[in-house]
Each structure stands twice: as structure tokens, then as C-alpha cells.
């Protein structure tokens, strides 16, 4: 009979031992999966928030725009380009924008603002901008008017129906100036944006800045943020690098990327502590179970079982228990994280408000990304293999005379 079969039989027959050992591994997997899923899910949620409410996963600009965001650094609208990008299977939406500075005035008050020319329908598809209107109406394709961010509106003391004056520098040093009725007031989560954004129809913006048919960016939202790198390459292949720059959200928002990375490091540190605790749990259980079998091992070696064979049986036993623990750990944690990834847990109170003030939705989200689960499995397998060192050395040292003495 093969060592594997013997191991399988031992696992099946000694239910108590199997349950205790597998349970220790189960807890290791369960806690690690839940914890990591929560961490990664929250990052994904943050990224999704930022990406879908503003930047997109990838942006295309005229080369040099990012370093010098002037109206001259724009590129002509090109429906062909937009279409080819939209055809990349991983791409969900392509949103054109024309963005520039302007002084916004109402009566005696003036404040610096950012004017973003949008295609109302496309913009709403990606950013759900219409949901952010707190008074008045969202823009439509034909109406001449603007949406003003809440804080900017209150600074200027204007409301829906008032007329805002926008003044700035247009394309090739033309003067940009225009009067627009305020169609709606919008509330943006990020305080920074809530202070200075004015949304306007794309064609109006192009008129205002004397930049007909020009765009400052195409924002691209992907179906899955894992595809950023491959899509970036695919896009780069389709455009002329002399004329365009392709940037990912990480390049656009390096602060967010850094914040996530540093949080991730502390998260991994916590995870390491968790692993140490559960690792000792697993190790302790395996030590106990080994010592408990002292006489059994003594008998086996006394009557003629080679230690190497016994070590092999114990290896398979440990492996099977590991697999059992891992499978049961996933069997319980996976439905949980699947459920919570569909319906994230809302955060209320002060913490929730802090989340909001940073422009994030106040929820604890969960990730179901297979990569991290594979990592968890590998770590647990390593823990189990390390724990196996104990029974291995125990077997190699065992002296049947001592093991059998009462």
C-alpha cells in the first residue's frame, strides 16, 4: 500500500485529529482571505471611485499636455481615433473633454475655476455626473449653460438661473470670455474639485476658448482595472507617439497611488502578524498531534517501518490536512467575500464622513481577485510545510525503546 493511501486512511479514520488540525489551517486561510480581500477591495473601490468619477483608467493627451496644461496643448477631435479605441475589447467607455482655466465671476465676486467641456451624455455614462446635481438640471446636448460646483457657487453667491461670466485665455492667445446661465449646482465629493469646477457643453467650451474641434483629453474607462497595462500598450500602438501621450491613472494621480502603496505596506505588515499568529497555531497543533502519536510511531519503527517511509506518510498527511484546511477556508470565506463584494458594507459616522471628504464612497469593499487568493494559498502551504519540519525531525529522532516505555 502506498504512503499516500496510508496517509489518506489515517486522515479519514482519525476524525478528531483531522478536524483539529484542518481547523487550525482553516482559520489561517479564513482570516487571511477576509482581511486581504477587504484591504484590496477597499483599494479597488478607491481607485474605481476616482477613476470612474473623473480620470478614467487611461487618458490620452496631446504630447506635453500633462506638464503644461495650457489650451494650446490640445488635439483635434478625431472620431476615427475614438472609435478604434472604443473597439478595443477591454475598453468600456471613451469620454472626450476640453479642460482649461478661467476666472469665474458673478456680480462683484471672482474666483479661479476649471472649466471642463463635456459631452453630457458620454460624461454621464462614465461619471454619473447627473446624479451629482443638487439643484437645477443636468446639461443637455443643446442647451447653453453650465453646471457649477457647490462650493464655487456658494463663494460666488449664485444660484440656478443666475448668469456666470467666464474669462480666460483662448487657443493661440485669443481672448476667451462668455456669459452662461447656471443650469444646475453639483456636489462633487472631492473638496478640491467642489471648489472650482464648472461643467459646460463641449462645443460651448470649444467656442469659448476659440478651439473648435479641439480636445484636451480622451478619458478611457476599462471594464477591468487589471487590463490597464495591456490596453495602454494597445493604444500606444494605434497612435503616433510624436503627437500623443498615453497616461494611466497611476501616472495622473501619483499621490493616490502612493497613499495606497503605503497603506498596503502596513496592511501587509498586519497580514504578516496574522500569519505569525495562525502559523504558531498550526505549528502548535501539529506538534501536539505528533507527540500524541509517539507510541504509534514507536511501534511502527520497532516492527520494521523505515523512518523515511513514515516521514513520507506524515508528509502526505500534512499535505492532505493542508488541502482540507485550505479548501474549507475558501469554502467559507469565498461566499462571504463574494457577497460583500456585491454589496459592500457601508461606513457611517465620522469615519464615513472622512471617507466622503476625500471623495471616496464610505464603504468597506471586498476584492475577489484570484491573484491574492493564490498568494494566500502559497503562504499557507509554506506555513504547513514549515510546520511539517517538526514531525519530520521527530520521526528521524524517534527511539522505539523510549517511545514504547510507559
Amino acid at each position, binding site marked *: 500500500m502506498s504512503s499516500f493511501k496510508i496517509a489518506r486512511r489515517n486522515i479519514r479514520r*482519525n476524525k478528531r485529529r483531522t478536524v483539529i488540525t484542518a481547523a487550525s489551517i482553516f482559520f489561517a486561510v479564513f482570516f487571511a482571505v477576509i482581511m486581504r480581500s477587504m484591504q484590496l477591495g477597499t483599494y479597488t473601490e478607491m481607485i474605481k471611485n476616482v477613476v470612474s468619477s473623473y480620470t478614467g483608467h487611461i487618458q490620452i493627451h496631446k504630447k506635453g499636455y500633462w506638464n503644461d496644461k495650457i489650451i494650446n496643448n490640445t488635439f483635434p477631435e478625431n472620431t476615427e481615433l475614438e472609435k478604434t479605441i472604443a473597439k478595443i475589447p477591454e475598453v468600456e467607455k471613451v469620454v472626450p473633454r476640453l479642460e482649461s482655466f478661467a476666472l469665474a465671476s458673478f456680480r462683484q465676486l471672482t474666483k479661479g475655476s476649471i472649466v471642463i467641456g463635456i459631452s453630457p451624455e458620454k460624461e454621464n455614462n462614465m461619471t454619473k455626473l447627473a446624479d451629482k446635481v443638487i439643484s437645477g438640471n443636468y446639461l443637455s446636448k443643446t442647451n447653453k449653460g453650465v453646471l457649477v460646483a457647490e462650493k464655487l457657487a456658494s463663494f460666488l453667491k449664485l444660484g440656478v438661473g443666475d448668469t456666470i461670466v467666464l474669462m480666460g485665455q483662448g487657443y493661440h492667445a485669443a481672448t476667451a470670455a462668455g456669459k452662461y446661465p447656471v443650469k444646475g449646482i453639483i456636489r462633487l465629493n472631492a473638496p478640491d474639485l467642489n471648489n472650482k469646477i464648472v461643467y459646460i457643453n463641449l462645443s460651448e467650451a470649444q467656442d469659448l476658448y476659440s478651439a473648435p474641434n479641439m480636445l484636451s483629453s480622451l478619458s478611457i474607462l476599462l471594464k477591468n482595472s487589471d487590463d490597464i497595462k495591456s490596453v495602454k500598450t494597445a493604444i500606444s500602438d494605434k497612435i503616433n507617439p510624436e503627437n500623443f501621450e498615453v497616461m494611466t491613472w497611476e501616472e495622473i494621480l501619483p499621490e493616490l497611488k502612493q497613499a495606497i502603496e503605503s497603506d498596503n505596506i502596513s496592511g501587509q505588515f498586519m497580514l504578516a502578524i496574522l500569519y505569525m499568529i495562525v502559523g504558531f497555531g498550526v505549528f502548535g497543533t501539529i506538534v501536539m498531534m505528533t507527540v500524541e502519536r509517539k507510541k504509534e510511531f514507536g511501534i511502527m519503527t*520497532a516492527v*520494521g517501518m*523505515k*523512518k523515511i517511509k513514515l516521514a513520507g506518510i506524515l508528509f502526505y498527511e500534512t499535505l492532505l490536512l493542508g488541502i482540507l484546511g485550505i479548501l474549507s477556508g475558501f469554502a467559507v470565506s469565498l461566499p462571504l467575500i463574494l457577497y460583500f463584494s456585491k454589496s459592500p458594507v457601508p461606513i457611517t459616522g465620522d469615519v464615513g464622513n472622512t471617507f466622503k471628504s476625500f471623495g471616496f464612497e464610505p464603504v468597506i469593499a471586498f476584492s475577489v481577485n484570484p491573484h491574492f487568493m493564490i498568494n494566500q494559498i502559497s503562504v499557507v502551504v509554506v506555513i504547513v510545510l514549515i510546520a511539517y519540519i517538526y514531525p519530520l525531525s521527530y520521526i528521524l529522532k524517534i527511539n522505539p525503546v523510549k517511545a514504547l516505555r510507559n
Partner: protein
Amino acid sequence: MNIIETKNLHKTYKESEIEVHAVRGVDLSFEQGEFTAIVGPSGSGKTTLLNMIGGLDKPTEGEIIIDGINISTLKGSKLIDFRLRKIGFVFQAYNLIPVLTAKENVEFIMNLQKRPKKERIKRAEDLLKAVGLGDRMNARPSKLSGGQQQRVAVARALASKPMFILADEPTANLDSESTRNLLEIMETLNKEENITFIFSTHDTRVVNKARRIITIDDGKVLSDEKK
């Protein structure tokens, strides 16, 4: 011909600073077909002697020759393999592997010898019937009485077709009924199949059945009588 010879066998245990001379110069030889009891008071060195003969413990001095081989020259897995092929063991207590049924315990040793499955099963069944456990073959040790467990142990010891069987106080934990029963089985096997048994005991009823009685005290052979 002698199957076992011990020459000037010594065993000294050293625990911290105190030395215990458990066996002090034992010269013995055993022949095929013997039914021998080793007797002596507690602490006289019976277990130590049997463990050394069985290759479980190493002498501090002297030689043990089994089937012409000096077993001190065997190391590690060679020695384990030697035990598997030549020696059957019955211990005082805790003889069986708890997760295995009676039949599997007997099969276990033939498994180690890599005998074909059919042969293993047949022999295990035959042996268990021979020790009177034909109806308890699929019971686990925890479901068997002490006497039944020792009979399974005897069946297991026989399964490997060893040259001889060493039994260290096989009846120490048994009631008189089970003791008589186990002894009858051992005697029958010895008479009918010429199986060699060497066992240690305190029990006079067991001693009386033996055909050779070796008395040891304080690690030395006091007397060696054949009936």
C-alpha cells in the same frame, strides 16, 4: 544450530551522573524451536536484554549474533529492515496501531514486506482465525479487550514469518483467563509450527509452561534450566 548468540553483553545507562548497569555480562544462545521464559525481579534487566536482542537498543559492550550476523554492524534503515525480516515483536502494552483494524494491523507488517495483496489478506485472516479472532477481524484495537489485542499482536508478529518472536511480558496486563488463552496459542504455534518464542514474565503460571527458564538478577544470568 544457534539462531541467537549473545557474547559478554553489557548495557549501562547513564542518567546525569548516575550510571545504571542494567545488563552485566550476559552470554546466552538460543536454538530454533525454543519456548523460553526469562524471569527475574523488577529492574533485573529483562526488558533491556530483550530490547538488545531485538535490535531496538544497542549494547554498551559485547556482541549479538543473529542468524550469523553481528547486528551491531547494522545501522539505521538496514537494522529496521533486519527487524522486519527476522524478528517478531509482542510488547507488554500498546502493541497495535490504533487507526487500523485487527486485520489491517496484521496486514501492516506484510505490507512493509511488500507481499502481494491476496497473500496478505489470506494470511491475515488465517492467522487471526488461528488466534481465535476470526469474528473480530474488522474491529479496531479500542474495541478489543487487552487479551484480544495481545492475540492480534501475536498474529502480527507471526505474519512476517520471523526467525523468532520476542515477547516482553505479554501477559502482564491480562486477566488469568486471557493469560491462559494467549499462552495456549503460543504453545500450539511453538509445537505445531516450530515457532521460536522468547518471552519475559513475572507470572509463575507462564513460567511453568516454558521449556527453558532463564533467571536473571541484577543484570546477570543466575540460572538457565531446560525441562
